[in-house]
């Protein structure tokens, strides 16, 4: 029957099946296999699936100590969290937040618990366990359905990439170990469209050094490379609080204490070579002085 269904129509049908089913479709015949294996398929599939975004939730089961991940359609009115409720970086010192959280907790309870409010969520099985009981992975970021996580409660961090839709994951090699004691590490994960590549960026501020060592993992090469940044006098505030916009990773930072003001530091994912350039973006005047700013 499909003798007369041209390749582009087969593709149009297959980009509409759930990601989990795609590998099964590859098994149908060599022609389908090669259509799906073509990088063009992945691009088309992503573009189509983005029309219906999901929110990824993660919670810790207090009893089992297990880390639970679920996907909720962001447009579902039964979502435990209403639309536009951005939780990525909660500012715990904001009193309004606590009131909101209390209200939210009551709402969730009224609906029968976090997972009682709707059957329309997808439970994911995290392929990795943190090394310590009752610890979360740190989520560096997620883009195009790919989640970058770090288990970072010891000196030898473990880095993972996980695509829950197709249940594939990989542990990344470790970056170069820095002899000197680290004072702090900051992370960002993003997609660089021009090279169709995913990058994990780690900034390490070594003690007594005001320019960070930058380690960049690129998925296409499968390896890390180090780069040097120019000395800078900003302090990034949150290790895992990066936001990726327009192909650049952004962190909130502030200048030294005596001249404290907030600003945004950005790193272009297209940055090539071993010299790293950070750009500074001012924050709105009203937020410049505060101590409780979040991206």
């Amino acid at each position, binding site marked *: 029957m*499909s003798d*007369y269904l041209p390749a582009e129509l087969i593709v149009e049908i297959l980009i509409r099946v759930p990601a989990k089913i795609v590998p099964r479709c590859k098994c149908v015949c060599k022609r*389908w296999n090669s259509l799906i294996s073509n990088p063009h398929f992945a691009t088309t599939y992503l573009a189509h699936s983005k029309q219906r975004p999901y929110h990824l939730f993660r919670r810790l089961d207090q009893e089992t100590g297990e880390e639970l991940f679920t996907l909720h359609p962001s447009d579902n009115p039964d979502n435990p969290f209403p639309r536009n409720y951005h939780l990525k970086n909660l500012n715990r010192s904001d009193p309004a937040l606590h009131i909101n959280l209390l209200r939210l907790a009551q709402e969730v309870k009224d609906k029968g618990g976090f997972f009682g409010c709707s059957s329309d969520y997808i439970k994911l099985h995290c392929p990795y366990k943190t090394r310590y009981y009752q610890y979360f992975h740190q989520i560096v970021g997620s883009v195009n359905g790919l989640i970058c996580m770090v288990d970072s409660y010891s000196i030898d961090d473990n880095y993972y990439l996980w695509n829950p839709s197709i249940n594939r994951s990989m542990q990344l090699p470790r970056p170069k170990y820095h002899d000197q004691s680290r004072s702090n590490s900051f992370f960002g994960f993003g997609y660089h469209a021009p090279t169709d590549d995913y990058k994990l960026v780690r900034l390490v501020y070594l003690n007594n050094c005001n320019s960070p060592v930058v380690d960049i993992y690129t998925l296409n090469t499968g390896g890390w490379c180090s780069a040097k940044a120019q000395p800078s006098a900003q302090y990034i505030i949150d290790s895992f609080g990066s936001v990726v916009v327009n192909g650049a990773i952004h962190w909130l930072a502030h200048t030294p204490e005596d001249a404290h003001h907030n600003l945004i530091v950005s790193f272009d994912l297209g940055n090539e070579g071993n010299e790293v350039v950070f750009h500074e973006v001012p924050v709105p005047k009203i937020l410049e002085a505060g101590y409780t700013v979040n991206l």
Partner: protein
Amino acid sequence: MSNTSENPNPSSSSAKITLKTSDNELFEVEEAVAMKFCTVKQYFEDEKDNDVAARGSSTVIPLPNVHSAVLARLISYCKKLPQSNAVADNHEEEETKKKERKQYGTPGDLVDLISAANYLDFKEGLEFFNQALADHIQNKSVEYVRKFFGIKGDFEPHEEEKYREEYAWAFEGVDED
């Protein structure tokens, strides 16, 4: 033989266009409906340029790749065209749309409908029936999908077995055929 009276309201003065299918059936349809098919629209506009349209609805547009049974289905879909094929705004709407897609697409006809919608360059219809077919096969076994599309599995048995083992998770949760 003619399949007229597609318009339930005879007093309507909207222009009609006649389409001729591969099995020589004639369909007289409202211009608004016919213009959803870009292939027809293009043909119609070309004719207009050639000043043939002056003869009005006497123009018959041949559709040698579309069978009458399929065209009738497409026209009826066109008339009840859901407001938009945009992605459902919420879960409930998505469920309604799923049901709707089930009603329209008898699985066996979907491939023909897709081919015809593609030939006619009928975008909404193509999207709709593609999604209906994707809904239909998503819980089916590989064997069912092969049979459905008339495809012969061409992997070596050991290749296929290895693949199925590696991606066992993608082969779970299959309905009875």
